[in-house]
């Protein structure tokens, strides 16, 4: 039954393709999102009980057939995907114009969700490539939806670099298959142990690193992200910001804890340097921008740096920190994009220089922004602090002092840009008497932000439930023989 997170969005997407009335397709899609949330919660409880669930598609036994595997890592990612999709689809009700909805917006969003869930659940490397492509095609259509000049231009950059990433991924798969003769992830990991000449394996490991690095916007491959993420409708940006780069990070974590675990020493130095550079360059990029959406786009990059830093350190605590960080980051970043969209809707622009006075007009709205923004900045009671704390403590324990130094330095700058948005949009005196389009805030667009902020608060004050879950996840990830035995027995 664990194919349901893939099947539900697929069926809903196909039905949305058939339905002509937009109100019907949006209802259908939101119902599907609720259903998916229910399935994800059910799957999480099952996986916690059974530790790992595997299904062999078509009853072809692994390693010959395609396996769908739900372990602790996949289950929590599927759950958070369902939450984000529900929030974004509610927001999209008032954010996406009717013309775009008629161009099958809902069908394509569901196709994207199918790709994302498929990537999380698959146990086969080539199948992962296929899900990546499904996700990619859907995201190409979404990012250029509407056909504005900036969108087309950003879309071209996004398209070209992501196509290159897929090509490199495919080459990596080819080399790996040539060497090992298998594509099942568990089987690859099992055969990796007794490989003598690791030349092709190392090449493949680096090719996959670059491919996933492009997808997750690591330094030096991140340029496509700030060039394209601010161009589409904000609901689409929020969905991308929350999920797409994290699929790349998930693939990185999966490949370097399972597939290339024997090659981890080789890649570790690269990961450390890359993660430090990703954090620093991302935050510097954000510091010089004056547009909310562009600042937030650059912050995705620097936050990805923290997650990869956890992977680079590679101790159980660090991986647990990285997983906690991923979940926290998905919630907070999606929320910030959605709220940024609300601010843009109120003022008609997202340029910080033209904003101001929001705190005077509505302290409640300011609080709504304050929670995710300062959680991202890492202010103590909020979840961002615990996420950073986990990763940094792991770094200290493993004696990566200058990496920790970079992380702390970047933390200060993150806070600086969040304070910049706060000071410019909320505290600064406004040039106009009253907010121009205050009544454009509808319930359906504010509600998702409130819910996501509540989730952030939950993670802040009751974060230890998630953190202990993340610790058992990282224990499971770092013990690949468990995964291998569960699939190949």
């Amino acid at each position, binding site marked *: 039954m664990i194919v349901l997170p893939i099947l539900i969005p697929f069926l809903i997407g196909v039905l949305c393709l058939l339905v002509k009335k937009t109100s019907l397709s949006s209802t259908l899609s939101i119902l599907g999102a609720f259903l998916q949330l229910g399935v994800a919660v059910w799957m999480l409880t099952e996986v916690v009980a059974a530790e790992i669930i595997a299904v062999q598609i078509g009853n072809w036994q692994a390693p010959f057939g395609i396996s769908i595997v739900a372990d602790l890592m996949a289950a929590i990612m599927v759950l958070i995907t369902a939450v984000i999709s529900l929030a974004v689809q509610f927001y999209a009700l008032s954010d996406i114009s009717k013309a775009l909805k008629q161009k099958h917006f809902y069908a394509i969003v569901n196709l994207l969700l199918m790709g994302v869930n498929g990537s999380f659940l698959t146990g086969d490397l080539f199948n992962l490539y296929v899900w990546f492509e499904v996700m*990619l095609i859907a995201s190409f*259509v979404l990012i250029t939806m509407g056909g504005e000049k*900036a969108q087309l231009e950003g879309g*071209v950059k996004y398209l070209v670099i992501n196509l290159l990433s897929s*090509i490199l991924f*495919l080459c990596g798969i080819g080399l790996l*298959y*040539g060497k090992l*003769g298998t594509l099942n992830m568990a089987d690859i990991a099992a055969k990796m142990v007794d490989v003598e000449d690791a030349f092709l394996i190392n090449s493949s490991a680096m090719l996959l690193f670059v491919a996933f690095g492009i997808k997750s916007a690591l330094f030096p491959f991140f340029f496509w992200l700030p060039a394209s993420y601010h161009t589409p409708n904000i609901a689409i940006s929020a969905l991308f910001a929350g999920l797409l780069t994290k699929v790349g990070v998930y693939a990185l974590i999966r490949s370097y804890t399972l597939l290339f675990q024997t090659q981890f020493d080789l890649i570790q130095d690269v990961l450390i340097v890359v993660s430090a550079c990703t954090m620093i360059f991302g935050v510097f990029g954000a510091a010089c*921008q004056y547009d909310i959406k562009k600042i937030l786009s650059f912050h995705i990059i620097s936050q990805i740096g923290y997650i990869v830093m956890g992977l680079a350190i590679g101790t159980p605590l660090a991986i647990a920190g990285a997983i906690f960080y991923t979940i926290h980051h998905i919630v907070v970043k999606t929320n910030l994009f959605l709220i940024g969209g609300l601010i843009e809707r109120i003022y008609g622009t997202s340029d910080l220089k033209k904003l101001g006075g929001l705190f005077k007009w509505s302290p409640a709205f300011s609080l709504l922004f304050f929670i995710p923004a300062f959680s991202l900045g890492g202010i103590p009671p909020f979840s961002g602090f615990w996420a950073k704390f986990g990763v940094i403590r792991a770094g200290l324990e493993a004696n990566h002092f200058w990496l920790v130094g970079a992380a702390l330095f970047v933390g200060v700058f993150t806070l600086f840009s969040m304070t910049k948005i706060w000071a410019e949009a909320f505290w600064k005196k406004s040039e106009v008497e009253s907010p121009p389009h205050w009544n454009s805030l509808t319930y359906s667009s504010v509600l998702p932000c409130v819910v996501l902020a509540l989730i952030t608060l939950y993670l802040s004050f009751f974060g230890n439930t998630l953190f202990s879950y993340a610790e058992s996840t990282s224990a499971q990830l770092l013990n690949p023989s468990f995964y291998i035995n569960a699939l190949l027995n």
Partner: protein
Amino acid sequence: MEIAIAIVIGVLFAGGIYGILRRSLVKLILGIILLGQAANMLVFSSGGLRESVPVFVDASTKATDVADPIPQALVLTAIVIGFGLIIFSISLLMKAQKALKSDDINAFNNTDKVS
């Protein structure tokens, strides 16, 4: 045979990289197509670069007489996916060229600007 395929793959990669480094949109898309074909060839030949044994063999045929079917299946999938992606890329580049009134990639620098 393998050395010939290796040379073909190398030439395809070289041509593709040359294409994507040019400034014209048409050469960009041609470069991507070439790179995609190079990757497909690489996957296709990956079954032959070692003494591979096919997975599904009847009892009557000897395993060494049959080519490994998995790379062929993989490359078929990859070609189909590439087909869809290339169609989309071409239509997107057409629209972008129309919107920006230029097929020079140097004109594509508006979304990177600091606002």
